[in-house]
Structure formats: C-alpha cells, structure tokens
C-alpha cells in the first residue's frame, strides 16, 4: 500500500511541480503563436505538436494544468467547506434552520441553472482580464457545488446525533465544541475528503462546459477544460492521439488524489 501511495504522491508531485514551473520543460508562452508551424505533429521542437494556431501544445498543457489543478481543488474545497458548514448548522441550529436549509438546497437543486447562468453572464461586465474571469469561474463553481455535499453532511450529522456513542458522550458531559470537533469531525472527515476528490474532475469538466455560456476560462488562457474541448472532434483525436494529453493529465492526477485519499483512510 505504501508503495502505491508513494507512487501516487510522486506522480502528483511531478504534475504539480511541472504545472507550477512550466519553464523547466518549455520556454514558449501559452499564447505564443508559431503561425508557420500550425498543426504540427510531435517533434523535437514541439514535443506535443502545435495546435491550429501554431501554439505549443506542451506549453498550453502545462499552463492549463496549473489553471485547473490549482483552481479546481480550491473551488472543490470551498464548495465542500460551505456544504459542511451548512449541513452541520442545519442539524444543530434548530428546527427552523433545518427547514431553511431544506428549502435552500431544494431550490438549488430545482433551479434551471442554464438560464440562471446565462442571465448571470449577461449581468456581469465584459471588460475583465482573463485572470479575473478564470478566478470568477471557479468561485462560481464552488458557489454552485456546495448544495449536493451539504445534504450528505446534514444526513451524516443528523445520524451521528442519534448514535449511542454521541448520546453517551453527551451524557458524560463532553462539551459540545469538543463533540463536534473531535467526534463528529472524525466521522465526517472521510466523506468530506471523498467529496473534495469527486468534485475536482467534475469542476474541471464543468469549467469547459461553462465556456459555451461565455463563463469559462477565456482565450488565450488555457485550462484542462478548454483544452479538452478540442476532443469534440472525434475524428481529429483518432488521427492525432497526442491531443489526448489533457485527458491523461486529468485522469492521472485524479487517480493519484484518489489513491492518496483511500490510503489515508485505510491508515
């Protein structure tokens, strides 16, 4: 188990280091266009080839990984923390808080998000830099992604409250803060870690879809999501398999995160 864990850690570390310091592998910027070398296959100069505008695919992949693998986990973490806080507050805040929680999470589940997002985009200013647009996209994902885990946490907390060990601890006079922080947190933590892990690839892909509504990461900034939008062209990636590199990076980093979460749980 420790070997697999080490391997996952090394893989994740490798990806993160390259994403944080892409200059180790490439000197080209992600938006530099080598127009006389457009759509080239992999070679010495461009190890992953170039895209249709002549941009170095490796440079775009590394910078795109940085965008997605820094912001998607952050957004996932924020979403889970929000969900956790809301779920636990619903259980311990009294009947009205619980009802309000139910109402809000039901509302979040039933809103036609497509139209809400379109309306939101229409209301937002256009004149923002790509960096702000990218950050706003992931904050939006966090704001939308808290409701589903919140229900899970609410049910977990409600169930814990009826367990014998909880009643016994309460009966023994254990202070509420200690009960929450030590006992409740211990039972919720594995679920929270799993929720964070599950949300990362979901958020990366959601970001790509938001691009269709004008809310995603905008040109020229790359992200794993918008790089994967190229794969809509089924025939293109069957003849240019190197276009699958973003999928490989996303799958391997998600797998590494999963292994780390599972092995930690097992320990």
């Amino acid at each position: 188990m420790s070997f697999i864990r080490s391997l996952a850690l090394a893989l994740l570390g490798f990806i993160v280091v390259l994403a944080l310091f892409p200059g180790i592998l490439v000197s080209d910027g992600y938006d530099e266009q080598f127009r006389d070398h457009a759509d080239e296959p992999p070679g010495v100069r461009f190890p992953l080839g170039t895209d249709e505008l002549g941009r170095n695919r490796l440079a775009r992949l590394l910078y795109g990984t940085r965008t997605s693998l820094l912001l998607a986990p952050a957004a996932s973490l924020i979403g889970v923390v929000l969900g956790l806080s809301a779920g636990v507050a619903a259980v311990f805040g009294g009947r009205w808080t619980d009802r309000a929680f139910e109402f809000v999470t039901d509302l979040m589940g039933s809103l036609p998000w497509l139209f809400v997002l379109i309306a939101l985009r229409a209301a937002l200013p256009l004149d923002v830099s790509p960096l702000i647009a990218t950050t706003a996209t992931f904050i939006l994902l966090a704001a939308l992604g808290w409701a589903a885990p919140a229900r899970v946490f609410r049910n977990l907390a409600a169930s814990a409250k009826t367990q014998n060990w909880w009643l016994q601890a309460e009966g023994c006079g254990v202070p509420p803060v200690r009960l929450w922080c030590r006992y409740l947190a211990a039972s919720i933590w594995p679920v929270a870690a799993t929720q964070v892990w599950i949300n990362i690839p979901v958020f990366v892909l959601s970001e790509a879809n938001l691009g269709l509504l004008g809310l995603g990461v905008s040109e020229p900034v790359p992200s794993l999501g918008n790089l994967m939008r190229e794969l809509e062209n089924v025939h293109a990636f069957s003849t240019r398999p190197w276009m699958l590199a973003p999928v490989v990076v996303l799958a391997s980093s998600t797998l590494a995160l999963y292994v780390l979460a599972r092995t930690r749980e097992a320990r």
Partner: protein
Amino acid sequence: MIARYPAVALLFLFVASAVPSELRFAMRSEPRTLNPALVDDEASELIRFLTGGVLIRVSRSTQKLESELATNWALSPDGKRLRLLLRSGVRFSDGSPFDASDVDHTFRLLTDPAHPNATADAFRSGDKAPVVQKLNDHEVVIVFATPLASAARLLDQVAIVSSRSQKPETAVLGPYQVSEYRRGSHMLLRRNPNYWKKDSTGRSLPYIDQLRITFQANRELEALAFRRGEIDLISSLDARVYEDLSRDLPDRVHDLGTSMDSEFLWFNQVPSSSLPDYRKQWFQSTAFRQAISSAIDRRDVSRLVYKGHAIPAVGPYPPANKLWFNPFLPVHNEKADEVRKMFAADGFRESGGVLRDAKGNPVVFTLMTNAGNKAREQIAALIQRDLKRFGIQVNIATLEFRALLERMTKTWQYDACLLGLVNVDLDPNGMMNVWLSSGANHQWNPSQVKPATAWENEIDSLMKLQASSALESKRVAAFRKVQSIVREQEPFIYLVHPNALGAWAPALKNVKPVALRPSLLWNIEYLYLSR
C-alpha cells in the same frame, strides 16, 4: 430550363420508384418559424426555400432571374409598378387553386405592421408598404410608393401563401410540404403532390419522395453521421472537418468557391452607450479603426482558421458577387511600420509595450463573439495576438448568442463585436437596414434619428439612390461608392469571405453545387438517389 437535365436519370427512377426515396441531412438549428413571412434565420430560410413557391427565383447558378409562378414580368420605367403575369393551372399542396388573390393575401401578411420582418422592410418605402392591384385572376401589379429597381429580385424571398386554404400554414406551392415536425429531433418533408413543375419527359417533380432533416448543432457529430452513411449531404462544412474528410473520402467533399458570407468585426460607436468617453473617442476615430484593421493579418486568418478555404475581405461582397463587387477597393496594408505610423498620427504612443492614447489611457478593449463557434474563437485569438504586437490588450469574451444580441441591440454594453453575415441576397437592397443610418441592423450605431457623420449621410443618400434608380449601371455605381466609403471609414472591419465547402454521398445524383445558399439543394427538384 427543365429540358437541360438528363433524361437518363429517369430510367433509373422508374426502376427504383417502388421504394420511396429519402434524402437525409442535418440542420444546425431548428427553424424559428414556419411562417414564410417571418423568416429571419438560416434554418427557416432553408425550409421556406424547400416548401415555398415564389413568383420569381434568383438562379443560384447564374445569379439571374428565372420564371417560377410568374411567367412574365415587367417593371415600369419609373420603377414604381411591377406587373406580373401569373402561371395558370397551379394548385397548392392542399388542392386549393393559385391566383392573384393569393399574391394580394401574401403581401398583406408580409407587410402587416403587427409582424415586422426584414423582407417587408426591403419592399417598403419609408412607412409605405407596397400595394397589390389585381388586374384579373392571373395578372397583378405591385405598386411601390417610391421606385424600387430590385423589386423582381426581392420576390425570391416571398413564398406565396394560400388565401383560401383552411390550413394556410400547410398549403404550399414549393416542391415539398412539412409532414412531421418533432422539436429537438427531426423534420420530415414529403413531396408536394400538386407541385406544378415537370421534367422534360413530363414526369412530376421532385424526384426524391421525402427529406428527413435532423437537428444537429454539433458539426463534428454531423460529420461522423456522414462518414457512417446516416446522412447524405452536408451543405456547409467547417474547414477542419473538410480537411479530415478530404483525406479519407476525397471524392465526397468539394470546395465550391468563395461564398457570399463574410466575417467581420466592429466597434461600438453608439453615443449613448455606457462606455468611458475616451473609448468612445477611440472607436469613433476613423484613423483608429483603420489602424486596427491594418494590424490584423487576414491571410493568417484564411490560412490557419479556414485552412486556405477563404479569401481576405476588403468589403461586404466578395468578387463572386459578379455584379455588385467593387474591384477597385484597395487591399489592406498590413506592414507593422505603417500601422505604427497610423496609430501615431492619431495621437497614440507606445511605451513599455503598451499603447496609450494622447491622455495616457492604455488601449485595452474587449472583443465579444458568440460562444461555440470555434472558427470565430480562433479568429479572436489571432486578432488578440496581432494587436498585442502593437501594445494593445484585447480581452476575449465569448457569449451565448442571446446574451450577445442583448448587448448588441439593447444595452450596447460592449466595446467590439466579431460576427459573420450569411448573405443570401446578392442585391444590396437586401442590406438596406444595415447601411441606412436609421436601420436597426446598422450595428455600430443603430437606429439613428439623423446620420451621426457626414459619411453615413452620404451612404444614406447613395443607398436610397441605388434603391430608387431603374438603371442598373446607376445602381452599381452608387453601391460601388458605398463600398469605397465603407472601405475608407471601416465601420465594419471585414476580415475574410469563407469558401462554401460541401460534401455529398455518391448515391446522390444531379448535384450542381454553387457557392450561393442553399448551395447543394438549390435544384432540389432534380436531385435523385441511386441506392
């Protein structure tokens, strides 16, 4: 006209006639309306073309006028009266007869003030709608308030509606009628049993029994369906898909030459918009627009985005529009030094890699375009990089189309917009509401009460002159002058005219592809399948 098609095809048709033949193809979007008078989108336009009967058709092949439901026509010397002799013995698909009262009824519907539409606008003179006078059952005169030289040509866009039918929406005079429409899925068009046209051997047209049109927005999936043989043709291919298909199926894809479409961008010049004053000043400056236009490498747009299947644009029409294109428009000078001089002459200075105006404001603007159009997103990325060379920061915002329209037409909260125009009308009269300063589609500064600039005033005069002149040479001269003014002032910065790229299965016969829309289906009556 009918006799020109080979009778050889018919031999096969008689053999295969036991099985109903079905032509399958996809449309990128669903028609917004089936009412022929309210058509304002490409999908509705195609359905109107396939189902509607018109008095006069503009041949997509020769660009000349051809007789359809009107056997003869003549415009009075003053250009105000168009006399039409109607074909007799014609019946709508539901069996009701066609005569002068249907023409009158159609024009009443078309010009109904409750349903404003672009086709009616092209016929109007000011607020006055054309009036149809019935001389007898088979002869009418359409009277215009002011001379309308292109009146006959505009009839290509007017599908005749039945005045007697109980269900006028289902009674058509075109080769096909809508028999099934499932939203989100498909549309089935069956041949009109009463269609009046016959081929040289006297056989009723069209040859193909039904058309199955599926709705498929994704171009990659459309191409995949074509590869699998699930659809028989693609009228408009993306350059990338064209290149992929041409490698594997070289005999099925065809470059039909330059289309009438154009890709262009414009700056928001609306005086009442919420833009900061200094930006309004940039965008209203001719020199600024000229410098931006010259800074864009159109050959790279053509080469990289369209894989060479496009030509750099200098104006609204490509050379393929034989009559109206102005061949004397100068091509853009894209030399970097010249562009720098142009910016400098307008008071802009570059320092530290940032271009600033005379007051020190850095030149930054947002270029919006519609999301999901890969070619446009790529063009925007090329423009972004081209302008970065001169110290200009361009932010790209891709918006869902309705949100884009909202900003473009109502709130005017944008700096610049990149879009394309699908041109189905060869005649400039079809673009009156674009070029007139009072027009709603005069995008850079729409619906002006009085022309904001002297050059817009001049365009207004020239457009009215060409619309009212009965002499073709006078009309051409006036519109060539309009093109020269547009080239000089660059309210629209034209980028490229993409080629029409099509693909069809070998089983589909008699295809006579043209660059004008509908490029593969314009002679739908004569197409047949040999499977």
